[in-house]
Each structure stands twice: as structure tokens, then as C-alpha cells.
């Protein structure tokens, strides 16, 4: 029995942590020492298991996925689903990312959340999230994956609304939950179609049978993949269901780093990569995936240009980067999408944790002076590089990574996606448009990241005279994980070095057993040699241009603290208000639904029909019948006797006949 059979331990450990921390949260919320030990401890254990599994796979890469059954779960008619885990190259990569980045963020949380009264509750939720995330990436069938899919949604809801006493936070949680429900509906419908088409829901069986059962480009496979992608747009915050993610920043910052940047929101990308055969068989769906991805990348990046909340900029940046990943997997470069997923997990987690470090410092400074200024508004920051040198250096590194500067990790992954989109343009010209959108988004990415860095760390300090002296670097338990993530952002590209720098595309080859069936159906000739270099050069030039423009535009004119700043006007206002999409959705969906709920369902159906006709009607009918029956009861013995006699005679007649 190989070590990989012990992969369930990686799920069981955080589950144990959840139970312990949950019990402590209910009984001993003050036992912070124990929580600090158990919460990150189980994650490090799970990371150890993941490393063990990965090492075993590395030594002996299997061609077939290893299925680890836990117990038989559903057996209904012809449908039989086991609760089983699937260990292969793709789930091993996800396993490492989730437990690795998860461990770092758990450690960071020890410092960040230390003074919060809900410390134990926080860690129990965080552990539970890891449990469901691992079920999601390890599940060997659609229903098992769906358990994880729903579970991470639940934990996301719980953690966004972690400070639920503030109504805005609770509302943000509800918004995330409800928008995800819309996507989950797509997932469920897709599962139904898959079962109808193949009679099974196991990944390996579905992928093996798909090319034999269905016609490529047919209606069924297109419908299945489009419904699956609807699920992805919900979970991974793509147009049109992206609006929940920026609001999800209401949760604690490490949560934003873990759930809303590094792991959960990438579940959609993972799903497309996992079902690559189906998407490869449906060119229309793949084009939709790539198109939505490119559009989201560009659209979200423009909104990021004019946000003032540091976390909101990063949130729109995440939406935008997720768009890149979908552009990758939609193009057929499944490995490139997963590669960008991994590098993005590194540098975006770093950016979020760095912003957490900044907010931590700002919050303490404002808290000490009883100021009510916004600790997350970048207009109140400025010049923080002198106070937070480590955070500044590491976030600068992450900025260069996300803008795609060589040799940082983001360069390789983003460049590969753009190159793939360009290559696909050869047979499907619309992909040239997607490529152009991706390049434009890269320019904007560089711009808003430069703006973020300039507003936060450069220029004059705008925090205030009293507060300035109170700004200081966070404790080592918070900066330590930042350093590790910084190193990963720096060298993460080594996972998949392209040929033109002398690499051998290690990750692509590693993922080949999983991606090969899809790649064969959806063949993609990647650009070689000079074209590849040229594309890379264009991407770097665009990134540099964006950075220069961003720094110059932001530092070139004075910035006023949030309280004194003039209101935005014109285009800036439109961008700041996110193109009024929230208001549009509010008018198009929320208000009509509320109106229907109130006027039709409540006043009409509930009050008139259910209460009026059904409940009160039933009472009225029985009272009427009772009144009629009461008329028979005259109280006169004589009448009773007559009735009795008549009845007796009637029975007698019936018997004698």
C-alpha cells in the first residue's frame, strides 16, 4: 500500500482541527494558546501529507489516477457514487497549493487575528474551509467535488460575514452566497446532463467515455460545458456573476488572501482543467470561456484603476487575473491556466497579506489615537515604505510578479496564456481579439498596481501627525509567511520554465497525463522561437509602460487624505462606482424580486391564498358544517327517538331484503 492511500489524512487533520477549534470556540473562547497551536498545526500536518503524496507521485508518475475509496455513499438505481479521492498530477498540484499557501496564511492569521474575540471561531472556520477545499480538489466524481464546492461556499459566507455585527459585512456574506447559488444551479444541471449522457459521474469514466459517446461540437456536450461554466462564473467571480468578490473583502484580510485570491475562487479554473476533455469537445463553449475570461480580465482591470480601498483594488485585480486563467483554459492551454493559478496563488496571497500588514499597522495607529479615518483607504496612507520596509519590499516584488516582469513567476504564466491565445488566433481569428484584450488588461494591471504602490508606500505620508509615529512593522509571525511567499513569487516561474530560456516546461509535462486527452482533441501549436520571444517582449514592454505611467500619473500630482479629497467626477466616478453594475443588478433583479416577493408572493399567495383561502377557509367550512350539524341536535328526546326508529327500520329493511 502506497503512501498516497493516506491522502485522506490531509482532509482528516483539518477536520479534527475544525472540531477542536469549534469546541473551544463554544466552551473556551479565551484558550488562544491552544487555538494557535491546533489551527496552523493541523494545516502543517496536512501540508506534510501533501508533500509525501507529491514526492511519491514524483518518483513514480502514474498514468492512471489513483482512486482512494473512503466509503460507498450513494447507490440509487443505476447511479452509484462512492465517496472517493482521486490522486493524480493535477490534484497533487492543487493539494500542495491549498495546504502550502493555506499553512502560511494560517500562520499569518495567528498574528493578524490575535486580539479578536472570535479567535477560536475564526480558526475553526478556516480549518473547515481547508477540509472542503481539499474535498473539492481531491473528489473523484462530480458529486464529491460538489460537496467541496458547496462547502467552500459555506465557509466563504461564514468568513465574509465574520464580523457580522456590522450589517454591511453580513450583507456581503449573503451576496456572495446567493450569487454562488446561481452558479451552483448550473453545476447541478450540468451534472444531470452528464449522468443522462454517460450513466456515471466519476471523472475517469466520464472522460474516457466522452469521446466515444458524444459527437464533438454537439448540442449535448456544449450544453454540459456551458452549464459547468455557469458554475465557474459564480465560484470564480467572472462576468456576469463577479460582483460578489469585491464585496467579499468585508471579511478579515487573511481570508481574502486564502479564499478570495489563492484557493476557492480558482475552483472554476480547476473544474475546467479537470473536465478538459468535455471542453475540448465543445469549441463553442471553449470560445465562450476564453471570451468571458478576456472580457472579465479587461473589465475588472478598468474598475481597479479608480478604487481607493486597498483591498478593493486587489479584489478587482483578482477578478481580472482569474479572467486570464479562464482565457488560458478556454484557449486549450489547460496547463498554462493551472500554472497561472499556482503563481497567482503565490503573488496574490502575498499582496493580500501585505495589504493585511498595512491595514494592521494603520488600524493600530488610528485605534490608538481614536481616529475614525478609514484604515483601508489608500488616500490616508502614503510614504509607508519608511515605516513598513519589509512589507514594502515584498509587495513591490509581488507587484513586479503580477505585472509580468521577468524573471518573476507572473511573467512566465501570463506570457504563456497570452502566447496560447495568440496561437489559437491562427485557426479561430476571434482569439486575436482576446489576445489584444489580454494585453490591454496587462497594461491596466501594471497601471493600477503602480498606483496602489505609489499611493500606499511612496510620496508623503498622509496618515496624520500623531498617527505617524505609531506605524510599525507587524510581528515576525506575520512577516515570516510574507517572506516565504515572496520567495515563491520570485522563483515560482521555475516550475514551468519555457523553452526560450532553456527550460523544459516541467509543469506542462508533469500535468500531461491529465491534460493530454483534452489537448489531443483541441490541438494547439504553441509559437516557437522568435515569435515566442516577440510575444514575451511585447508583454514585458506593456508591463513596463503601465508601471511607468502608473507611477508618474499617481506621484505627478498631490493626493489629499480621504476626508479632504474632492469627489470624483466624469469617467473617474463611473469607474469608482464600478460602472454602476451593482445598481444595474439591483434595478434589474433585486428590486423586481423583492417586489414580486412582497406584492405577489407575500400579499398575494401567502396572505390571500394560503392564509385566506386555505387556512381561514378550512376553518370557515368546518364551522359551517358544524352549524348545520348543530341544527339536527334539537335536544328533544322525542325527535331522537323518531330518528332512531326510522334508522332502525331502514337498517332492518336493508337486512331483510
Amino acid at each position, binding site marked *: 500500500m502506497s503512501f498516497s492511500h493516506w491522502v485522506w489524512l490531509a482532509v482528516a487533520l483539518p477536520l479534527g482541527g475544525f472540531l477542536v477549534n469549534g469546541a473551544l470556540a463554544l466552551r473556551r473562547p479565551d484558550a488562544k494558546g491552544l487555538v494557535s497551536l491546533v489551527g496552523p498545526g493541523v494545516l502543517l500536518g496536512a501540508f506534510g501529507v501533501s508533500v509525501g503524496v507529491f514526492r511519491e507521485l514524483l518518483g513514480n508518475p502514474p498514468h492512471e489516477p489513483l482512486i482512494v475509496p473512503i466509503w460507498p455513499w450513494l447507490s440509487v438505481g443505476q447511479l452509484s457514487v462512492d465517496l472517493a479521492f482521486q490522486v493524480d498530477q493535477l490534484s497533487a498540484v492543487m493539494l500542495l497549493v491549498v495546504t502550502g499557501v493555506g499553512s502560511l496564511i494560517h500562520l499569518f492569521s495567528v498574528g493578524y487575528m490575535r486580539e479578536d474575540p472570535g479567535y477560536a471561531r475564526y480558526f475553526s472556520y478556516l480549518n473547515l474551509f481547508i477540509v472542503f477545499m481539499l474535498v473539492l480538489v481531491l473528489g473523484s466524481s462530480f458529486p464529491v467535488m460538489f460537496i467541496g464546492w458547496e462547502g467552500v461556499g459555506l465557509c466563504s459566507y461564514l468568513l465574509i460575514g465574520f464580523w457580522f455585527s456590522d450589517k454591511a459585512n453580513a450583507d456581503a456574506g449573503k451576496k456572495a452566497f446567493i450569487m454562488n447559488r446561481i452558479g451552483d444551479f448550473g453545476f447541478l444541471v450540468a451534472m444531470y446532463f452528464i449522468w443522462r449522457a454517460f450513466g456515471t459521474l466519476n471523472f475517469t469514466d466520464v472522460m474516457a467515455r466522452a469521446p466515444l459517446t458524444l459527437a464533438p461540437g454537439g448540442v449535448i456536450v456544449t450544453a454540459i460545458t456551458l452549464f459547468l461554466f455557469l458554475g465557474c462564473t459564480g465560484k470564480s467571480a467572472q462576468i456576469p456573476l463577479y460582483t460578489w468578490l469585491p464585496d467579499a473583502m468585508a471579511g478579515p484580510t487573511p481570508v481574502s488572501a486564502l479564499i478570495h485570491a489563492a484557493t476557492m475562487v480558482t475552483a472554476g479554473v480547476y473544474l475546467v482543467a479537470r473536465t478538459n476533455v468535455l471542453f475540448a469537445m465543445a469549441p463553442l463553449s471553449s470560445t465562450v470561456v476564453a471570451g468571458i475570461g478576456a472580457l472579465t480580465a479587461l473589465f475588472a482591470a478598468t474598475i481597479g484603476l479608480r478604487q481607493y480601498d486597498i483591498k478593493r483594488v486587489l479584489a478587482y485585480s483578482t477578478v481580472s487575473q482569474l479572467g486570464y486563467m479562464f482565457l488560458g483554459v478556454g484557449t486549450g492551454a489547460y496547463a498554462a491556466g493551472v500554472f497561472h493559478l499556482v503563481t497567482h496563488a503565490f503573488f496574490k496571497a502575498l499582496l493580500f497579506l501585505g495589504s493585511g500588514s498595512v491595514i494592521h499597522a494603520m488600524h493600530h495607529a488610528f485605534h490608538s489615537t481614536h481616529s475614525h479615518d478609514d484604515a483601508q483607504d489608500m488616500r490616508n496612507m502614503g510614504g509607508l515604505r519608511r515605516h513598513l520596509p519589509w512589507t514594502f519590499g515584498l509587495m513591490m516584488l509581488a507587484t513586479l510578479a503580477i505585472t509580468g516582469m521577468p524573471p518573476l513567476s507572473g511573467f512566465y504564466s501570463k506570457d504563456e496564456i497570452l502566447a496560447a491565445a495568440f496561437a489559437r488566433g491562427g485557426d479561430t481569428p476571434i482569439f486575436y481579439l482576446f489576445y489584444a484584450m489580454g494585453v490591454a488588461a496587462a497594461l491596466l494591471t501594471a497601471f493600477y498596481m503602480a498606483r496602489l504602490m505609489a499611493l500606499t508606500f511612496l510620496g508623503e505620508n498622509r496618515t496624520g501627525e500623531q498617527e505617524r509615529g505609531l506605524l510599525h512593522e507587524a510581528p515576525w509571525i506575520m512577516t515570516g509567511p510574507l517572506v516565504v511567499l515572496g520567495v515563491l513569487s520570485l522563483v515560482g516561474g521555475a516550475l514551468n520554465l519555457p523553452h526560450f530560456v532553456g527550460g523544459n516546461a516541467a509543469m506542462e509535462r508533469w500535468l500531461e497525463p491529465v491534460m493530454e486527452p483534452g489537448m489531443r482533441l483541441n490541438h494547439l501549436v504553441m509559437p516557437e522561437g522568435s515569435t515566442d520571444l516577440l510575444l514575451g517582449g511585447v508583454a514585458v514592454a506593456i508591463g513596463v509602460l503601465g508601471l511607468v505611467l502608473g507611477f508618474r500619473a499617481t506621484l505627478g500630482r498631490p493626493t489629499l487624505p480621504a476626508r479632504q479629497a474632492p469627489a470624483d467626477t466624469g469617467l473617474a466616478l463611473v469607474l469608482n462606482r464600478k460602472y454602476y453594475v451593482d445598481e444595474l443588478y439591483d434595478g434589474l433583479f433585486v428590486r423586481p424580486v423583492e417586489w414580486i416577493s412582497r406584492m405577489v408572493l407575500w400579499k398575494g399567495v401567502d396572505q390571500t391564498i394560503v392564509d385566506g383561502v386555505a387556512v381561514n377557509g378550512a376553518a370557515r367550512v368546518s364551522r359551517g358544517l358544524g352549524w348545520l350539524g348543530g341544527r339536527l341536535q334539537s*335536544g328533544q328526546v322525542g325527535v331522537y327517538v323518531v330518528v332512531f326508529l326510522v334508522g332502525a327500520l331502514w337498517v332492518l329493511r336493508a337486512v331483510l331484503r
Partner: protein
Amino acid sequence: MLLGPSLGLSAILFSLGVAGVLLRRNAIVVFMCIELMLNAVNLTFVALAQLYGASGYIMVFFVMTVAAAEAAVGLAIILAMFRHRQSVDLQNINLLRG
């Protein structure tokens, strides 16, 4: 052996009982009419027992037992009724009217 006249007599007695129950308003008289009906039935049993065996006689004993019990309870009720209302007229007793 006088089967026809016996059954005829019992039919007349029974009908008299029914008529009394239906027409009279005095509770005591109604009560006596019920007894009359029971005894008419007893007569039928005895008469038919000659043809069908002893079970008819046994049935008569049962009926007489029930009639005795009923007389005890019924008279007690009528007595209690009279104490409350100073009357045994059934038309005044209509507490069960719906």
C-alpha cells in the same frame, strides 16, 4: 303451540311501547313503555325458543338483567332530574340542543 298468538301479542305490546315512547311526555311513562318493549321482545324469545332451542330462554335472562340495571339507573336519573327541575316533562329537558 300458540306460536302465532304469542308473536301477535308481542307485536301488539311492542307497538304500544313504541307509541308510548313517541307520544308521551312524562319521563316515567316513557320509561315504563321502554320496559313494555323489552318484555314484548322477551315474549318473542320465549315463544320462538320452543322451535329453536334453549338459547332463547337464556337470552331472556340477559334481557331481564339488563332491564333491571336499566331500571335502577333510569329511575335514579329521573329522580335527579326531578330534583333539579321539579318536573319530569321531557319537553323541558333540552340541554343538549345544538
